[in-house]
């Protein structure tokens, strides 16, 4: 087991090194940072001096090593645009994105699981067919279009819910939360709905497939034969068997949701990491771009590794399998 753990950890570290290399390449290839920092009157000598001070004249490998060493210490430098420490900046934005993703995940489970069970239990009924069709519509609607429509209906026309921002927040230590104020909760509704739409259909389809599988098993057939009420058979016994894959999917999807939140955050002006990233892209604020890429990849890799290790704990046969990371292939879009 220990060998397996070490192997997984080494693998994760290798992936992160490669991501760091990518981030570093972006760092190097994106224009000339000196041109973006100095003001227009700066002379050639001043520019050269700054270049030397930033270490841009060192060898490629030296610069890469310095980048990795700094990154390990959480030091990504100073944002060109905000002139603030990049890690502090991202840290301030993290709670907003996390709360958005958390609520979207809850919605996807609360809505997706029952829909999945219904479509499986009543398969081939008009309700199930309608829901199946609805789920295809769900994956086909671009989330930015959904966001725009939600704003148009619920903010502009009906005036029920705010169109942008997080509302009032309360600080608990360094964590700023919108859960404890009325305006904070109201502001969460539309963005989390639009972010969760894709995830709802994923959960629903997974639950349906797993349920169909389970309903064929002898255990369920036997339960039915024993005369247990169908409701209990379906919603208690069969569903319980489906939960493990659902939890796995949810866990692995969190990384994708964090990344995809950048679209939602742009539409709703939600002050999270994603909006920071998009603004960094338009302003060519490379330290922020590099840090965001590293952080999101780290969360991604961490979740994948946790899922793999958990599975290995549950099912020892998987421990010497080389490629358990397949589930992430079918997980992007929306």
């Amino acid at each position, binding site marked *: 087991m220990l060998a397996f753990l070490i192997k997984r950890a080494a693998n994760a570290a290798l*992936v992160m090194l490669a991501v760091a290399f990518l981030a570093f390449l972006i760092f190097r290839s994106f224009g000339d940072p000196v041109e973006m920092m100095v003001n227009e009157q700066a002379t050639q000598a001043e520019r050269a001096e700054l270049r030397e001070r930033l270490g841009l004249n060192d060898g490629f490998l030296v610069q890469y090593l310095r980048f990795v060493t700094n990154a390990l210490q959480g030091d990504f430098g100073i944002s060109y645009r905000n002139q603030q420490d990049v890690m502090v900046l991202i840290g301030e934005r993290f709670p907003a994105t996390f709360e958005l993703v958390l609520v979207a995940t809850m919605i996807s489970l609360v809505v997706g699981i029952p829909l999945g069970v219904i479509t499986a239990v009543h398969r081939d009924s008009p309700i199930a067919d309608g829901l199946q069709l609805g789920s295809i519509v769900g994956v086909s609607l*671009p989330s*930015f279009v959904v966001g*725009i429509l939600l704003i148009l209906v619920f903010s502009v026309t009906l005036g029920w819910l705010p169109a942008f921002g997080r509302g009032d927040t309360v600080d608990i230590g360094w964590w700023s939360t919108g859960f404890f104020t009325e305006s904070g909760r109201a502001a969460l509704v539309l963005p989390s709905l639009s972010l969760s739409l894709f995830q709802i259909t994923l959960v629903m389809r997974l639950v349906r497939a797993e349920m169909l599988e389970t309903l064929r098993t002898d255990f369920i057939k036997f339960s039915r034969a024993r005369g247990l009420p169908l409701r209990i058979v379906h919603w208690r016994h069969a569903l319980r068997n489906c939960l493990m894959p659902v939890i796995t999917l949810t866990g692995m999807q969190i*990384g994708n949701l964090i990344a995809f939140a950048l679209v939602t955050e742009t539409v709703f002006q939600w002050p999270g990491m994603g909006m920071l990233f998009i603004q960094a892209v338009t302003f060519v604020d490379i330290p922020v771009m590099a840090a965001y890429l590293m952080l999101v*990849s780290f969360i*991604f890799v961490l979740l994948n590794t946790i899922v793999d290790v958990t599975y290995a704990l549950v099912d020892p046969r998987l421990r010497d399998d080389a490629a358990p*990371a397949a589930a*992430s292939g079918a997980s992007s879009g929306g």
Partner: protein
Amino acid sequence: MAASLVSRLAEHELWWSFKRHPSAMIAAALLLLLFIASFAAPLIAPQNPYDLAALDLDNSELPPIWQSYGAWPYLLGTDVQGRDVLSAILYGTRISLIIGFASVLLSLSVGLTLGLLAGYAGGWIDNVLMRVGDILLSMPFILIAILISAVAREALPPGLRDTLAAPILVIAIAVPSWVQYARTVRASAMVEKGKEYVQAARLIKVRPWRIMINHILPNTLTPILVAATLNFGLAILSEATLSFLGVGMPPDEPSLGTLIRIGNQFLFSGLWWIVLFPAVQLCLIVLSVNLLGDWLRDALNPKLR
């Protein structure tokens, strides 16, 4: 090989299933219509939306023709520059479809080639290719696409930036998606590699490549076809998302996502037609593709039904 492909597709069973699924039929018909309309755009569109000299501010902000002040030939109205919305949608659809198709084709060919190579060669080549795949899969799809698109645009001189916008998007979308195909083919290749006919081919000095391709591709055709169809929808969505975020097609050569981004600025000014029609068009395309893909998956894999 091509013949066997066609015959498989036209297999009686598949056709029969198609006819029994009205949603698939409607989707296919709709998609065909959109294809024809958008590729015939230069012939049927009232205006060439890329020709700056054709835009006239005097015709700007006309509503759709069924509303008062609507005017012929601007069926779906015009935008703030006097660009005909219908023409912009037709041309934009063409861009979206081409980018979607090209990126699927690119990722498919790269994925198949590398997958075969990895499976057949094994050893360090396999190791390197699969590690690269792992790394790509350990970063969110949308993030890779945004980064590639943004970096490429910044690295290019301004003159080339707009000309190369479409190829950049194709690459940005294809790079993160070839891994899926490669893995499927690699698995199949590894199984086939050990089989006797390959060994025999080696002995008689026939290139085992050709034989393998002939055996492996048909085996993996079903999952790859389904994946490619669904990825086509995903690629169109991704292109629209990138353009909406401002790292895709430029405003003077708008795709559907660009049109929605621009129209979004006028959402509250009463100019709803600038954003609504492109959005509806985008949803229709992706929905049709997904309906087809969904049907194809069920039809080719009866176990799922």
